[in-house]
């Protein structure tokens, strides 16, 4: 298709754009149209992006965020948008960090970008075409999702886990081709796990499991990676290994979006950042110029200092 033709991409070329995206709770997920009907009356897209919005008592208790489903379990707030007028661009060769407190809509934005959620307003475009024009299978050869490190139900081997990434490229009855095997081996090599290929995935350490999932995404031969809090359950050194691997992969001309809770990691590893609060885009742009103590204080509603030491920038509470 259109976006396949000119790989590799030029550095900084826009791969995916989110245009005026709004998504409402209860619109699609509940199945019924009731929630959506409630949402419609105040569904006017807000022109002033990045504006401070409803920081009242209502907004502060923004509901319990269920990390898995990305839904606020807050019955009284069905009409509140999960995402409101988001405009973003993801570029080739850039690692984009997605920062925001729990319940800010990061996961919902991810799901909209991956085509799991259909936006109620606006669109997500891939190479200039809205996502809904792609089939699930076609989308999977362009976009890859790296979930949080998990235990597989069945004890698959590392190689088998990575081979699953070839699903969108397989056809019908045929088994894995020579090319598939080559791509899988190469993906494992890129994340540095070649010698663990025949190990049991469930017996690896958390960091290694996360890298296997990154390798699977690479085996998909997608050009956009979406990583959902990849380091949240890892120890200090494993966090750095995963971040470095992802950054190196992104530098080779892919786009990568990474959802993260530690602003320090975003400062150290990401090229760009998008900051979400209450479903609105607070700020976006290059990391160095965007992340300021004023922004972080607004985001977390507590004093934050940014300090330079040993040639690195640190964010301290």
């Amino acid at each position, binding site marked *: 298709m259109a976006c396949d033709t000119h790989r590799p991409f030029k550095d900084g070329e826009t791969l995916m754009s989110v245009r005026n995206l709004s998504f409402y709770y209860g619109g699609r997920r509940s199945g019924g149209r009731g929630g959506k009907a409630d949402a419609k009356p105040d569904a006017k897209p807000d022109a002033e992006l990045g504006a401070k919005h409803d920081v009242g008592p209502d907004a502060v208790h923004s509901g319990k965020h269920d990390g898995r489903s990305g839904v606020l379990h807050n019955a009284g707030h069905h009409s509140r948008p999960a995402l409101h007028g988001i405009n973003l661009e993801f570029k080739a060769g850039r690692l984009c960090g997605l920062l925001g407190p729990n319940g800010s809509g990061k996961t919902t934005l991810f799901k909209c970008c991956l085509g799991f959620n259909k936006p109620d307003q606006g669109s997500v475009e891939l190479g200039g075409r809205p996502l809904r024009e792609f089939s699930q299978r076609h989308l999977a050869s362009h976009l890859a999702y790296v979930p949080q490190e998990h235990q597989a139900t069945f004890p698959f*081997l590392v190689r088998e886990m990575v081979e699953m990434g070839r699903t969108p490229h397989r056809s019908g009855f045929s088994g894995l081709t020579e090319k598939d095997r080559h791509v899988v081996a190469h993906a494992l090599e890129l994340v540095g796990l070649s010698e663990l290929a025949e190990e049991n995935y469930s017996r690896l350490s958390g960091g290694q499991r996360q890298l296997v999932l990154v390798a699977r995404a690479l085996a998909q031969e997608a050009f956009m990676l979406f990583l959902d809090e990849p380091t949240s359950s890892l120890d200090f050194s494993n966090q750095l290994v995963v971040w470095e691997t992802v950054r190196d992969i992104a530098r080779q001309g892919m786009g990568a979006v990474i959802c993260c809770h530690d602003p320090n990691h975003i400062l150290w590893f990401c090229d760009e950042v998008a900051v979400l609060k209450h479903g609105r885009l607070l700020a976006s742009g290059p990391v160095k110029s965007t992340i300021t103590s004023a922004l972080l204080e607004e985001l977390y509603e507590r004093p934050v200092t940014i300090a330079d030491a040993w040639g690195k920038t640190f964010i301290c509470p």
Partner: protein
Amino acid sequence: MFQHGLVLRYSRVFLFWCICTFTVVPTHSQHKCDPYILGASSGAACGAALAIIFPYIFPQGQLAAFICALAAVLLSYGLVRSRGQIPPMALVLSGIIVGALFSAMVGIMKYLAADTQLREITFWMMGGLHYATWADAALAMGAVLPIFLLLWRFGWQLNILSLGDEEARSLGLNPASARLLIIIAATFMSAICVSICGIIAWVGLMMPHAARMLFGPDHRWVIPGSALLGAIYLLFCDTIARTLIDSEIPLGIVTSVIGAPYLLWLLRSRGRAVYGL
């Protein structure tokens, strides 16, 4: 000699009993759902009892069993489906509820039945190969073989479904439609088998896990593997059933007596490795 040949032949019918039962397992990862749990056997029993008691309304016993088994499984799925999702634990519960409903109907019919009919129902429910005829075997092969090949072809998709819906979608597979197809195929297959041989429990629950231990978790191996193991196990149990005492012991009893302790042992010793519990 003739009897021995018969056993071999009928065991082929059962080769497939196990495949159908276990394909549902990974689609609802971590829960051991087979059509037995989803009420297929109670449904089939109800259909068979209907045919035994009201032969003039339901002249075809197997057809009635088949339809009722299919209805029971679809009902368990239908009851539990909410917001386009099927929560696995709720599925087990709804299977129990539907099973209880059909069992109650069987109970009513047993109460109403004459002595010979009661005896017939009881034997049918214990399960066995002695009812099956050559025509049944042909029917089972004809229906089950294509479905088996279809499910085998879906082995890769089953692997991916076991990772969970979201990952399946991100890998380009539509989990809802793949699951629906697999469930319908598996239910169809098991309903045919149950309608021919009655309720033979535990084969479908045991053999997939035994196959997993032998061949690893890849469903492209587990599917043919458990079919083969299921046939071997049934042959083994049928031999015991025919030779242990003078008269034939119903096969369903033998498979349960051997199968239940096996599953208990499996859960205690290798629960984590096999089920990911």
